């Protein structure tokens, strides 16, 4: 299922105008998402990093930028690179709060992703605190 999606998106990427940076970064990001779901975290990371490289040059697309930082954090976590994952996920949360506000669902979910990393690092109290904030945020945002 993911392979046909990947094929299709690769074709979209080839057909895209390289100067349309918003579109190219969106395709790179969704390719990263496909590989992540497929369980290929290394390829996912490559595509998310390509998307990030473009997005950091743009002044718009801040929501996608926050999403890509979060996804890189998830990839690094899966690879066991917890310290670096922490930096990317924190960066994602900072942007998410600036763009969507502290009470958005995205902010709540990404606080939870930070909690998952802290748990892997063995920081149980910090992890509980983050997950409490995440759970209360989710309840407020979507019930």
């Amino acid at each position: 299922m993911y392979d046909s999606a990947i094929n299709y998106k690769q074709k979209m990427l080839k057909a895209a105008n390289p100067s349309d940076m918003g579109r190219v970064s969106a395709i790179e990001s969704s390719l990263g998402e496909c590989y992540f779901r497929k369980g290929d975290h290394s390829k996912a990371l490559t595509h998310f990093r390509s998307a990030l490289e473009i997005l950091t040059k743009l002044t718009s697309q801040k929501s996608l930028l926050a999403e890509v930082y979060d996804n890189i954090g998830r990839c690094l976590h899966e690879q066991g690179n917890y310290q670096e994952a922490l930096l990317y996920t924190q960066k994602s949360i900072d942007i998410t709060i600036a763009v969507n506000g502290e009470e958005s669902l995205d902010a709540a979910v990404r606080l939870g992703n930070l909690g998952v990393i802290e748990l892997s690092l063995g920081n149980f109290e910090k992890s509980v605190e983050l997950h409490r904030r995440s759970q209360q945020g989710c309840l407020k945002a979507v019930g």
Partner: protein
Amino acid sequence: MHLATATSYNNLGSSLHSLGSVEQAISCFNSCISISEAVLGNYNKDIATVYNNLGLSYHKKQQYQQAIDLYLKSLHIKQSKHSTAKNSLATSYINIGLSYKCQGNYDQAVQNY
């Protein structure tokens, strides 16, 4: 009711379990299960994982029979024809074996390992 909230309960439960706050962890896993079952139905692999987590918390409380019942529930979901989680059956058998061992029920433990 939203799956993001269910996930946040499961995450909080896992952290509380690791911290040793087992009663609070159990309450979080139960909240996660009620939301997930309402949204996804009963035969989803994510719910099987949460039943397994709940079993781990009862195991930590040394309520081994309760733990075994929950692991079996998780196993039953994973084995069902609707399930997408057939590849994580091994985890269930290992946990069931461990709880039987702690109960002193070595024959059952060996069968599950």
